[in-house]
């Protein structure tokens, strides 16, 4: 029979962990079921912006996507991942996910949207790059104009630290930094690296203020058309590659950081100080969505 065409689209570039994850998934499925599928990987938003990909996978116009924070808008409880300084480290993320968080998140997404969640991996911790001063403790952010993405939660975080959040289109951000429309930006390391922001900024503070997972999802209508064996392989491979995906993401981040270190000062931050300063932001989330997921995370600390 003809191989089934499977497009895996992502809104981020080939440098992002999403690309490595898509390639890895395709490779492993190919090994288990040789010749049954023809995978085509479309990074860099070739098949649309993140919101269009998330709508598209639900409507069944695309077979699979690997996307990130846009998924969090599917349900307010997923706003957990917008909470600041929720995770201490990648290891902490992995522990929490393995101890039930991943299963809970997966079920939540599938109950809300017409998708099959194949895997939850890493988009990455978000950090701040800027030209004004290194950020070590909360006071360092006062008055800093920071380009942010994401919703009101992340805005609240930066405002509560006295920063001035600004939403500048990502394509304009590099120029906005050069000209001083913003003092800095928050994003994952691969984002800074891909835009060569280390060349116009002075400080990269590893704030780890937010951790965003990546979500490898298949459209429900596509998934239902697969044979039972194929479905089983998709799900198994999706789980199998989780550990490898975290290792890949870590390796990418290390490589980019090492590359950037020649042109920019990199510093760690006083994590507990930030965690304390922003804990009040959690209250409104807990009121609306309960405390169970936060407890899961805390138990894995």
């Amino acid at each position, binding site marked *: 029979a003809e191989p089934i065409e499977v497009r895996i689209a992502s809104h981020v570039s080939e440098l992002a962990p999403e690309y490595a994850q898509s390639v890895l998934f395709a490779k492993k499925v190919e090994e288990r079921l040789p010749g049954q599928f023809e995978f085509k990987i479309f990074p860099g938003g070739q098949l649309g912006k993140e*919101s269009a990909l*998330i*709508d598209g996978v*639900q*409507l069944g116009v695309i077979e699979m996507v690997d996307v990130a924070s846009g998924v969090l*808008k*599917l349900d307010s409880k997923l706003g957990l991942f917008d909470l600041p300084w929720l995770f201490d480290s990648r290891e902490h993320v992995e522990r929490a996910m393995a101890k039930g968080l991943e299963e809970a998140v997966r079920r939540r997404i599938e109950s809300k949207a*017409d998708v099959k969640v194949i895997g939850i991996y890493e988009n990455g911790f978000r950090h701040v790059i800027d030209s004004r001063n290194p950020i070590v403790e909360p006071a360092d952010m006062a*008055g800093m*104009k920071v380009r*942010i993405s*994401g*919703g*009101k939660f992340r*805005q609240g975080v*930066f*405002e509560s630290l006295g920063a*001035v*959040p*600004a*939403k*500048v289109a990502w394509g304009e951000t590099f120029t906005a930094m050069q000209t001083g429309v913003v003092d800095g930006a928050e994003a994952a390391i691969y984002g800074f690296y891909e835009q060569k922001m280390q060349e116009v900024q002075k400080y990269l503070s590893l704030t780890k203020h937010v951790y965003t997972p990546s979500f490898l999802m298949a459209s429900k209508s596509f998934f239902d058309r697969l044979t039972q064996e194929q479905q089983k392989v998709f799900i198994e491979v999706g789980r199998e590659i989780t550990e490898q995906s975290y290792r890949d993401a870590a390796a990418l981040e290390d490589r980019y950081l090492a590359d950037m270190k020649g042109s920019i000062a990199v510093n760690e931050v006083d994590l507990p100080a930030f965690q304390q300063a922003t804990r009040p932001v959690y209250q409104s989330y807990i009121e609306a969505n309960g405390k169970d997921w936060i407890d899961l995370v805390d138990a894995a600390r």
Partner: protein
Amino acid sequence: MTDPRESLPTAAGPRPSGGRLLRALDRLVGAVAGLCVAATAVAVCLNVFYRYVLASGLVWADELPGFLLVWIAFLGAYLAARDDGHIAFDLLVAKLPRPLSGLLSALVELSVAGFALLMVWLSLAMIRRVGWREIETLPLPQGLFMAVLPVAFALIALALALRAGFRLRHGGRV
């Protein structure tokens, strides 16, 4: 040709008046689209004001105007369809003898109207299934902004069908 106004001097296509009701509809659509333009201008300026004068962010002001642009674009597309103002290559059709060119134009208008009806159906299906998802910065469903698609495509189909009908009634001489 380029850009916005290029159609102005050539926008001479027949515009069936269609009576009071249709003119009221034109005015209503024009007013809503105009209000959207005004709202985007206000939001964009407010954002600058917040950043420099109040030293704080107005994060929705970076997302909402983008969504309003969808309303501006598609409602405006109805207005442009009403007076035959969309960018088109009409040199070839204009070279044809009169009744033939009119009939061909009517045929083109009817086929675009048919496509617009298909779009009404497709965009309604889209809204039914993903319209509930909230936008990033405000607790508003994106369906609110997607809703302009079926509305505007229905209006465009109406405008084009009316003009095609007008041409056919005059035996293609317009």
